[in-house]
């Protein structure tokens, strides 16, 4: 009986698929490209990470040797891992909160001024590599804007080499990344705030909500949950993908690996040394960290306030 049932349901599925053939045709072009350039690379990475493929010799299956080497024998990778986590732990949450706070604050303002301020906050993230202007502002000689100000005010005697002195490199990179962080999440929040039903606030005022802060906590945040979850994904993914901005500012590789991230390590082994197997192991680890932290935060957000 059970066998009959599966055959029957298989036929039903087949019939439905045949009936939906137009739907498949419409979806197919996108899905083929999506598979080729997004899913297939992940599968290739996972597979190659178990080999010693280096684009010269034939590849051998070596199990988890690459991962063992990464964690036990590669000091630079440990630095990169540490830096990546520091960057993500600082720029992710702060960037997220900045998006939330400014979207909320801007929402209180009349529409014309709101549109203008939205532009001011959003502009950096869409201005391409305008962030390289920071390298002029913080230029390492006395013609750098910040250095010249500090020199003139007598705070320092010699210009600070912001992009080459490990003491300052991480801080300056974090500042620039935060400057760039009011992107998609910011717009999502703005839309979220505008979409909240006004009558909720009016009835809440009757029910004894006293300040805008209480309003925010008891009404706004609970009604924005879907937007908060989507923004979190955008912010977290962005906070792990900042390697290019860092390279643009301090060069690659950075002085004493002070701001070396997993992304740079990946670029080093994959793009420069062509050790594809090893690079694939690095990519797989980065992939797992990104996916893992996204899923974790999403789970936490979906539980919050329930």
């Amino acid at each position: 009986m059970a066998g009959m049932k599966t055959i029957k349901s298989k036929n039903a599925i087949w019939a439905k698929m045949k009936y939906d053939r137009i739907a498949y045709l419409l979806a197919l072009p996108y899905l083929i490209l999506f598979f080729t350039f997004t899913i297939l690379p992940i599968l290739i990475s996972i597979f190659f990470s178990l080999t010693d493929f280096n684009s010269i010799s034939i590849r051998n299956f070596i199990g988890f040797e690459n991962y063992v080497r990464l964690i036990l024998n590669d000091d630079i990778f440990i630095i990169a891992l540490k830096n990546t986590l520091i960057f993500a732990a600082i720029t992710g949450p702060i960037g997220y909160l900045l998006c939330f706070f400014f979207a909320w604050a801007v929402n209180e303002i009349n529409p014309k001024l709101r549109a203008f301020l939205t532009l001011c906050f959003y502009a950096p993230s869409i201005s391409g590599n305008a962030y390289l202007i920071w390298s002029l502002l913080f230029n390492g000689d006395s013609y750098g804007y910040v250095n010249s100000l500090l020199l003139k005010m007598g705070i320092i005697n010699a210009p600070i080499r912001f992009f080459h002195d490990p003491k300052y490199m991480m801080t300056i990179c974090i500042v620039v990344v935060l400057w760039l962080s009011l992107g998609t999440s910011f717009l999502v929040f703005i839309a979220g705030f505008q979409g909240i039903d006004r009558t909720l606030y009016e009835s809440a005022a009757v029910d004894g909500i006293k300040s805008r802060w209480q309003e925010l906590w008891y009404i706004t945040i609970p009604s924005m949950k879907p937007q908060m979850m989507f923004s979190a994904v955008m912010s977290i993914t962005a906070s792990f993908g900042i390697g290019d901005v860092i390279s643009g500012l301090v060069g690659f590789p950075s002085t004493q690996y002070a701001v070396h991230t997993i992304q740079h390590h990946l670029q080093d082994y994959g793009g420069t040394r062509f050790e594809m197997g090893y690079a694939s192991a690095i990519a797989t680890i980065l992939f797992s960290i990104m996916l893992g932290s996204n899923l974790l935060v999403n789970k936490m957000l979906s539980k919050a306030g329930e």
Partner: protein
Amino acid sequence: MTHKKLNRSLGGNIFVFTIIGIFAFFMTIPLIYAISNSLKPLNELWIFPPRLIVSNPTLKNFYDLFNLMSASWIPFSRYIFNTLFISICGTGGHVLLASMCAYSISKLRFYGSKIIFRVIVFSLMFSASVTSIPNFLIITKLNLIDNYLSIILPAFAAPLGLYLMKQFMETMIPDTLLEAAKIDGAKEARILFTIVMPIVKPAWLTLIIFSFQSLWNSGSNLFIQSEELKTLNYAISQILAGGIARAGVGSAAVVVMMILPIVVFIFSQSNIVETMSTSGMKE
């Protein structure tokens, strides 16, 4: 304002507005500095200490950018053309393919569409840096090295656009409307292009803007190796690497680069916000 202002104290207003004001100012300083620098004549660039605002603005840097550069390097206009070409083709294909797929997933709900959408949501959770190395191998296998298709084809299938379009269609297009059209004998493709697409205009405008921005900003990568095929982003980092000596021309290049996305955003802000209103994640 039609609604009543509730729970607002003067002190709180002043506090919030002051913070926004200060931050808005600091956010825009680097951009103002770029614009100001791009207008500075050579002698002002070498003033110590450097000034934030230009006193004798000139367009000489822009002139140099477009004319003098052509003598020694690839003409700057070539980089602009390359970038425009990639951006326009990539964006056009992305909007078309993503809309078709989003319609199919959100409204035709074929067998397997739920799981496919889940995979697409997962793909928002990692950035392109993870896939760059295997993508290089794939692009090589497809024989697309030094071909714009190596940038354009992956852009067609950007997951964010599909996600936003699918969410918007799901919320904005009632099933009854599609059923009515089907009873009238309209084919799926026709329904998509004549009924659905006009309704989801804010969404495809948003897709155009997002895709255009990311392609316009696409930098140097392993796929494009010939100098004359490279993009604006690459050219600018090369110019700015020259330091203060090229600060004026470099800033002019930055201004050229940022002006287009910003102007486009000014005109499309309300559409983007409308699209984002349906972008929330349900689970």
